């Protein structure tokens, strides 16, 4: 066949395939799995969880689909919610990195499985810090920590409380930087921790539904004042990087001594050699930096609901939970007593007693914009 003919027929065939009406049904024994998480999580599922689960359950496959971000995932969930109303097939069985309170109405209409009633064998092992509504279940967590260069700051002299940290930053001007709170969770965690500090270290004052412009604005302003006070002692008298990665880059270039960073991101950066071995991590002991557990949801109307629940139980096994720590650099979803003792001892310094979670929605919005208007502008950085 001439190349030209081949091209024409090939493109016609492709066009035909695309234009044909697409009728897809969820296959039995195929778990349709969707995530809002990043590539490292999809890799973790592809390389570790999928092969292990499929080996343990012959004939069952997991279809891993990247829904790109939480807006993308919510679109799929909205489809399941619509399917619930018409008793049709949602073609989705498992949502990773999800939130049962979304999309709006999902909880009221009973879209998601209530895990407290499903007799998961590992349900009792779940970390109590991850307690939320029973439709949300976790298997991994992450928190913001301080990552620092031990060649400049010996590990035993690292700050352990907010007051120590502030004292250290002021005593070592130019050696600390955090990123803009809307551009990455590590900087957001730092800003949120300052707001907690200014409000009696009490995260329970901040709930999704209790933001008011008046009281909320005052609570945030107190935190901003702490941060403004710190600004002249930051790198370049008040510079803020535009993301988690850029902060890690500055730490790796030795431009700063300490940054707030995500636990999983810094552990994998150390593992890959992006950050040198001399990097150490520490969590504040008076009140940790905020972070959170990743939630999974399972829709009640998925064709493979039983298998999806089995999968959720499977990823809480010690095997996978240890891999969450070693391969992903995350925190286990189960209590630390249920991971191997070696790992427990190795990460003892990082095991949080509390992981505060700053509420999304109005609070976060006000925090981010308020930070830009109050903390970021520098009157004079030239001095």
């Amino acid at each position, binding site marked *: 066949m001439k190349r030209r003919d081949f091209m024409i027929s090939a493109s016609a065939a492709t066009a035909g395939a695309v234009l044909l009406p697409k009728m897809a049904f969820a296959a039995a024994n195929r778990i349709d799995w969707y995530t809002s998480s990043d590539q490292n999580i999809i890799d973790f599922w592809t390389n570790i969880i999928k092969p292990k689960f499929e080996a343990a359950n012959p004939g069952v496959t997991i279809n891993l689909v990247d829904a790109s971000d939480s807006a993308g995932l919510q679109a799929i969930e909205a489809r399941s919610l619509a399917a619930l109303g018409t008793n049709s097939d949602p073609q989705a069985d498992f949502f990773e990195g999800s939130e049962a309170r979304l999309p709006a109405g999902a909880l009221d209409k009973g879209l998601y499985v209530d895990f407290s009633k499903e007799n998961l064998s590992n349900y009792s092992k779940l970390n109590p810090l991850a307690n939320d509504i029973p439709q949300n279940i976790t298997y991994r967590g992450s928190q913001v920590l301080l990552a620092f260069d031990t060649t400049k700051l010996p590990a035993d002299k690292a700050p352990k409380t907010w007051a120590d940290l502030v004292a250290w930053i002021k005593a070592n001007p130019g050696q600390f930087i955090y990123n*803009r709170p*809307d551009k990455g969770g590590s900087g957001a965690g730092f800003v949120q921790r300052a707001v907690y500090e200014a409000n009696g270290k009490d995260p329970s004052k901040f709930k999704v539904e209790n933001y008011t412009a008046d009281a909320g604005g005052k609570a945030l302003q107190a935190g901003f004042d702490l941060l403004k006070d710190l600004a002249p002692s930051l*790198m*370049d008298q008040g*510079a*803020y*990087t*535009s*993301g988690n990665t*850029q902060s890690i*880059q*500055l730490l790796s*270039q*030795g*431009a*700063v001594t300490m940054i707030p960073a995500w636990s999983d991101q810094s552990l994998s950066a150390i593992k890959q050699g992006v950050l040198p071995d001399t990097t150490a991590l520490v969590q504040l002991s008076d009140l940790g930096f905020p972070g959170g557990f990743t939630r999974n949801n399972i829709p009640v109307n998925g064709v493979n609901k039983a298998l999806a629940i089995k999968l959720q139980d499977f990823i809480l096994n010690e095997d996978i939970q240890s891999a969450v720590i070693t391969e992903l650099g995350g925190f286990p979803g189960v209590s630390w007593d249920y991971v191997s003792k070696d790992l427990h001892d190795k990460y003892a310094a990082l095991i949080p007693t509390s992981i505060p979670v700053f509420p999304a929605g109005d609070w976060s*919005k006000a925090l*981010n*914009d308020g930070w*830009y*208007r109050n903390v*970021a*502008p*520098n009157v004079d*950085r030239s001095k």
Partner: protein
Amino acid sequence: MSLAPASDIVGTQKSRGRPLGLLLVALPVLLVFWMVIFPIISAVVTTLWQKGSDGQYGLSLRTYQFFFSDPYSLSNLWLTLWVTIVAAIILLVVCLPIALYLRFAKSRLASYVQGLSIFPLFVPSIILSFAFIRVLGPNGAFDIILNALHLPKIRTPYLTPWGPLIGLVWDHIPLTVLILLAGLGAVSDASIEAARDVGAGRGRLLWHIILPRIGNSILVALSFSVLGIFSAFTLPYVLGPAAPEMMGPFMQRTFRDLYDPDNAITQAVISFFFCIAFGLFYVRSVVKNQRAR
């Protein structure tokens, strides 16, 4: 330059050529209407025709009043204008000598210089940003060289307005050089030699012979780079300071983080009117050029 090849596309037979020509032009015109003109009209209408406090839609300048009375928004606008104007001046200062050299040099070296000045065209801005951090950032390659020469460290331009400024200038060198070079093609060797024969020095040559011929190209080059710089996003996002922000990142943040499309669109409309002012320069010079023909 001859127009013959362009008229060949339309066909030599006028009777058959005209509808075909219109058809060819229809696609870009439709696209411009659909993807540019319509969104502009829709944006302007959205920002002016808003739901009032009584729930009725009506003419309202609320978002514009907010923008022009909000010192934070205004400082973002000033920063954007400052970066744009300074970058345009630096571009002209850097690119005019390069273009003059490339026009008059006959050596092999000139082709290498040309290759080098076009190179930034092929570097995506996100790669440029991270390269910038590694070279001009704190403890970057530049600092290491200074240190090796026992010179003091520089204050890094990273995370200051100079960061995106330097990046944007580097990014816009190729286009500016190419446009200026095209303009210099209009300066004939004969006119230069004639001026030399009557004793004109280099300065006079530039001022009286070359600049008057390429004034148009300079204007076109500047308006192109100004339009690009005003709406830049990646470089100000990664390299710029947290506050004040340039309009690109500011709009994106207002839209995505603050879920405030009305104010984001208002910022876009205001940016658009500044760009239109620069764009008019370009259109005017093109029209003038065509009339001259």
